[in-house]
């Protein structure tokens, strides 16, 4: 049998299909839904963070604007711009310092405010000015040139060195620059508010802890305004034209997810980047967990299915093995299985069946043996009876030629005897046949006996046509002659009578032989009563007990043989059978 056809395999397959498919399906759905959800949340979160940062940046810019407008609205400032007198200039320092002191409180983190009037005066606050750095020097600065072109909107410069500072020329700062007019709009100047990159960084990175996996940067149309962290290796080219939400690849084989928003006021793009692996870490974790759970469940399911299938199929397999053994002729098999389920029942039924089959086989073989023995006996008895008769007739012919009429007569009698005893397969025969048989037998015995033997047969009317079990008289008569008359060596007499008594036929066989002594008689009577069957079956006693057995088995307990005897007077055997009339068909055949 192929493995694919076995019950074990079928069970296993069904269990696995039932468990693994839904499990995988559920696992996949759960993972897909959950990760989508998480992804959305993460994106939303990232955008939210970016918005927050934009808000903070706007607030900062708004603050700077307020500082600027605060200055613009003061009359001192207006006067300073309008002032053309160098001598008055130092006085403005004092007045403006007071103003600035209050203005700078809006954004104390700013590191310096510079006002440049077109009249050539420069005012500085919060740092020491390089006295040699005049208005013309300022006008040469690139960002101041830029503001000149676009004179209405404020500008935030890129990071630049503070060349106009006395103390820390190398300090890199951003500057908020705005062109302003005095109240009479006759003269103008520039307000420059410096702040350090750290300030911008603080505003933007306030919520982030991890240095490498994420960060914020700002760029405009030309370059980075605030560069991303160096370790991220993000180049300007790679981010320049990307849309928000895309993934970028760096030279160092890092993947980043990029979100950005545009600030119209400053023309800045504020971008937030996340390392993809880090960003999707929760999603990946979920993925991993989902896979782990699914795979573990599947393995557990398969193992369980294997165990269950094995447990179910094992007894069946065992039963099958036992059956194969039985098929191959080994009938001593037993199916040992204690379970009380159907298979256990099946096994018990099977065991019972085997026991029965064994019994049957034994009884059949025993029967066969007996039958064979019986057949052989029958064959021995019946070796072609016609040959026997023809041979007898040949002997008869020879006797006739030689005029030996006694021999001829004896042969005829023997022929009759043989006919009656072996040719007929009927169990029951008419009584006249039985009597003919007895006559033939007695005639033969008459010739054989040394001493004269006389016999008489008397039958009531109607007895002749009744049926009897075959060969019940002959053994009795034989006993009478062999055991009764022969030992006496005197003239013998056998009287046979058949009488009709009510609905029974009673035969009596009476001899004048030596009789049986009382102890022996008692023993015979006891045996007749109780042991006739055993004796005739196993001890091959064909006489009295055999007749008794056959009468009992045919007619029942109420019939049979009784025996009476007196020493030296003779023995009388009585046989009682029911009256059974030969019907017409049988009459034609047998009577």
């Amino acid at each position: 049998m192929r493995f694919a056809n076995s019950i074990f395999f079928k069970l296993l397959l069904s269990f696995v299909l039932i468990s693994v498919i839904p499990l995988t399906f559920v696992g996949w759905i759960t993972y897909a839904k959950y990760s989508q959800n998480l992804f959305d949340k993460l994106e939303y979160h990232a955008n939210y963070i970016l918005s927050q940062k934009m808000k903070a940046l706007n607030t900062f810019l708004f603050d700077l604007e307020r500082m600027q407008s605060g200055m613009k609205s003061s009359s001192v400032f207006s006067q300073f711009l309008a002032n053309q007198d160098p001598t008055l200039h130092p006085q403005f320092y004092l007045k403006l310092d007071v103003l600035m002191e209050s203005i700078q409180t809006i954004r104390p983190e700013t590191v310096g405010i510079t006002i440049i009037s077109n009249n050539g005066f420069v005012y500085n606050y919060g740092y020491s000015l390089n006295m040699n750095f005049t208005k013309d020097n300022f006008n040469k600065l690139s960002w101041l040139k830029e503001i000149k072109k676009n004179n209405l909107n404020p500008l935030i410069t890129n990071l630049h060195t503070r060349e106009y500072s006395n103390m820390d020329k190398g300090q890199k700062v951003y500057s908020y620059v705005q062109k302003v007019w005095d109240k009479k709009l006759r003269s103008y100047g520039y307000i420059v508010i410096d702040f350090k990159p750290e300030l911008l960084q603080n505003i933007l990175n306030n919520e982030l802890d991890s240095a490498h996996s994420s960060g914020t940067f700002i760029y405009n149309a030309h370059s980075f305004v605030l560069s991303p962290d160096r370790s991220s290796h993000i180049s300007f080219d790679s981010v320049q034209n990307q849309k928000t939400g895309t993934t970028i690849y760096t030279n160092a084989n890092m993947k980043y997810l990029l979100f950005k928003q545009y600030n119209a006021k400053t023309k800045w793009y504020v971008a937030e980047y996340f390392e993809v692996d880090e960003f999707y870490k929760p999603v990946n974790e979920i993925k991993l967990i989902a896979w782990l759970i699914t795979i573990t469940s599947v393995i557990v399911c398969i193992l369980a299915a294997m165990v269950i299938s094995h447990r179910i199929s094992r007894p069946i397999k065992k039963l099958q093995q036992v059956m194969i053994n039985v098929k191959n002729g080994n009938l001593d098999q037993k199916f040992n299985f204690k379970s009380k389920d159907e298979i256990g029942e099946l096994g018990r039924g099977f065991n019972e069946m085997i026991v029965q089959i064994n019994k049957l086989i034994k009884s059949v073989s025993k029967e066969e043996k007996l039958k064979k023995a019986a057949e052989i006996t029958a064959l021995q008895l019946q070796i072609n009876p016609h040959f026997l008769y023809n041979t007898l007739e040949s002997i008869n012919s020879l006797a006739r030629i030689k005029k030996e009429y006694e021999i001829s007569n004896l042969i005829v009698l023997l022929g009759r005897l043989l006919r009656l005893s072996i040719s007929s397969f009927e169990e029951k025969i008419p009584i006249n046949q039985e009597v003919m048989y007895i006559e033939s037998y007695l005639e033969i015995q008459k010739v054989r006996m040394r001493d004269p033997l006389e016999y008489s047969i008397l039958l009531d009317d109607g007895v002749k046509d009744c049926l009897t079990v075959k060969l019940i008289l002959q053994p009795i008569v034989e006993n009478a002659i062999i055991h009764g008359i022969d030992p006496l060596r005197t003239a013998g007499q056998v009287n046979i009578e058949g009488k009709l008594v009510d609905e029974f036929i009673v035969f009596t066989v009476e001899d004048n032989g030596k009789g049986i002594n009382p102890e022996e008689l008692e023993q015979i009577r006891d045996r007749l009563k109780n042991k006739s069957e055993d004796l005739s079956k196993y001890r091959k006693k064909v006489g009295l007990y055999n007749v008794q057995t056959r009468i009992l088995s045919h007619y029942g307990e109420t019939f049979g043989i009784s025996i009476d005897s007196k020493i030296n007077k003779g023995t009388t055997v009585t046989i009682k059978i029911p009256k059974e009339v030969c019907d017409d068909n049988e009459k034609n055949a047998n009577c």
Partner: protein
Amino acid sequence: MTMKKMLIVDDDWLISSSLMSMDEWNERNIDVIGTAENGNEALYWMENEKIDIILTDIRMPHMDGIELTKHIYEQSPQIQVIIMSGYEEFAYAHNALKYNAKGYILKPLDTNELFGVIDKILKESEMSLPVLSQTDEKSATYHERLVLSGKSFINANYMNPITLKDVSKRVHLTEHYFGQIFKSTTGESFLNFLTRIRMEKACQLLKKPNLKFYEISQKVGYNDPKYFTKMFQKNYGLTPKEFRKQFFN
């Protein structure tokens, strides 16, 4: 009182001859005219002799006793039949009765029983028949009977390669003596008679178109078909083939 003629039919010569030799037949004025080995032979006897009683076995080759009894019942019911048999099967006894057999005696034969039946038959015929049939029938001589016995044997056995020796044995005479008796009684030699019988049978068989020549040759006792053809031509002046052609034209 007229002599009754009786035929004994049994394939066992010992039985038939022992029965034939019994003195009781003479005592009862019965003439046992011969024995036959089977039904065919018995029929041949019946054609050539007027028979009153037939004592027959059942199991015999070629034609068994029941068939013979039936034939007699249909063709010559005046013949009384007694059956003797080793078989006591109901079917046999039933058929015997149906074809009006006078007795059914089992083997080994009880002669008392047999003569009981014979006596009964004699008694019946005595009562019913006036003296009548004897006049035109002259009784066959002893020699005629021997020859008849031989002829019946030939008739029943022509299909076998038989010789004068076989036939002589059958009638318990020497070849030479039987040959002489045969010739003097019939006027033709034994061999001529045998050949004539065979040729007559061959003519009959040739009228059946489905039989091959060699088959016919076998059926009339010639193992060599060429020899058969030669003998045929010698007897009739034409070959078996020509004979058949002529017959069908």
